[in-house]
């Protein structure tokens, strides 16, 4: 439990570091740290902890944005929609990685990229559906490239972590291939 809370806190802080990409997209370290932690420490109930992490990151971003001046309702909700990205990612992570029953599993980078792309789809679909926002005009290549880049970072952290950090009693369950 303490480990899980630590992962969420670390991810929340890491979310401050972000690299903007086109179409309002950005690569944030928050998701990288959160899912690297969930995978490395084989966190039980990954969907729940992805949601908690997502909520924490969204609220923290809102807090940080409020420091720079008054914030409109739209701006605030803009941060909250990100929460659904984490839920989407968590669900796909659970099915594509934790419950991977194939004898020929996808490489971890590819499976994580699916989660990332799926999370993005859910977030932008709900934004479009509920908030009547126009669909993000980001290109397919950018979405996939960002997903792969984040996934490579996650796998690198997991690999380093499994070598240099004791990942707990479930160490043997961690896969980074």
């Amino acid at each position, binding site marked *: 439990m303490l480990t899980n809370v630590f992962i969420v806190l670390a991810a929340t802080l890491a979310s401050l570091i972000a690299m903007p990409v086109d179409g309002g997209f950005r690569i944030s370290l928050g998701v990288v740290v959160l899912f690297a932690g969930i995978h490395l420490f084989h966190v039980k109930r990954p969907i729940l902890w992805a949601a908690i992490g997502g909520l924490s990151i969204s609220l923290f971003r809102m807090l940080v944005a409020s420091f720079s001046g008054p914030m409109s309702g739209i701006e605030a909700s803009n941060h909250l929609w990100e929460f659904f990205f984490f839920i989407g990612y968590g669900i796909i992570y659970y*099915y594509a990685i934790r419950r991977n029953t*194939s004898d020929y599993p996808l490489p971890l980078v590819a499976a994580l990229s699916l989660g990332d*792309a799926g999370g993005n789809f859910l977030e932008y679909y709900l934004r479009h559906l509920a908030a009547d926002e126009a669909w993000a005009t*980001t290109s397919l290549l950018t979405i996939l490239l960002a997903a792969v880049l984040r996934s490579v970072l996650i796998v690198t952290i997991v690999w380093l972590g499994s070598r240099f950090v004791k990942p707990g009693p479930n160490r043997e369950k961690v896969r980074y291939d």
Partner: protein
Amino acid sequence: MIELIRTLGGFLWDYILLFALVGVGLYLTVLLRFPQFTRVFPAISRLIKDIKENKPAEAGRMTSFQSLATAVAAQVGTGNIVGVASAIAAGGPGAAFWMIVSAFFGMSTIFAEAVLAQVYRKETPTGELVGGPAYYIRYGLNNVWLSYIFAVLAAIGMGIVGTMVQSNAIVTSLSESFGFPPVWATIALLVVVGVILTGGMGRIAGFSEKIVPLMAGAYILGSLIIVFINFRNFVPTLQIIVQSAFSPQAVGGGALGITVRETMRFGVARGLFSNEAGLGSTPHSHAVAHTDHPAEQGFIAMIGVFISTFLICTSTAMVNLMSGAYIPTIPAAEMSQQATLMTQNAFVSGFGTFGGAFLSLSLSSFALTTIVGWYFFAESNVKMLVRNKKPLVVTFKMIFLAFIIVGPLLDPDVVWSINDLFTGLMALPNIIALIFLAKEAQWLLKDYDRQVASGKLEWPDLETQPWRRKNQKKANR
């Protein structure tokens, strides 16, 4: 180049496969003594009993229902909607009649395919069953090269080209009907297919057994409602179908430029293509079913043709003809250009704007299940080609997912033409195998009847059979 592919594909389908597939179906129907009449309905009742008992599948195997659902997932695709509409537009209402006739003979073909796939299946080092035409060509016909040719064509045809066709159809349909930007529709499709594939055979089977009855049931129900709305046209439509099957001129074919030959050609080709009997696709899923006797799966496979052509294709044909979406006074060449819109108009006439969305959703779900089913079939062939080497099978899976992204970027006409050529070429080795192994299918059916009559059913002792010993000798040489 694309013109050459179109010409080759057209020649293959119109002049070789049409006759070869109907011929094999006819030959097997006589050899197996018309199993369509006596075997399908008992198989349906047995299948319902199995579903009620809800026995879980053993690891690395599917239940009979799961294998049927996976086969139907692949069989029922965009061709069951757009293809049928095109056949009627180009061949007139009589095409529906010939479509059913070809499916009737296709039932015997698919019986033989499924039975042979059961007999010649193999177990992978991980304990999963794997089989299909490549396996019965290799171990039954003892022709390694022909099995490799089939496996390569199937892996490319179903795993790459077929995937692009279907992903293109889904993305176009979702973006046109629901306003999804193609980029996001592609992402959604990629994620859904990717997640299903990460669950292996178990998740593919689970997905198929849940989605296929739902999508087929919804489409048939929607079609039935249109039929009921236009019920006054029911008998006249049946009359037109039968009349124009033999004399399209009598229904206005003279003016439309449709001949009996064209009516037959379009109808038979659509029937064969929609239920995939003889193409060598569905045996891959029937091979992995757990049964007491191979013939049992043969009967189950026949239900797949029944669902795909007799129920779904006929629904599309009736909806188009009864709703007035098909206009007999418009020349065939002009009608063919509006074929895609024809079924949409039919559903819109019954349900208003919801009809368009319903059709688009049906089309997308049909295409999605086809992608999943075809992946499973293609993977079976890749496993044989690469001797179950894990990194290579995984690489194929990655390539397959990559082509889901590529599909929507290409011109659909070009991809369809390549797909027609590959599926056509794939059918040739399978037809050869079916002709030479037909007697084995016959023996297995007789053995099943013998066992049922004696009151006990068990896996036949194949090693003692004369044809198996002959095969063994050949293999040893």
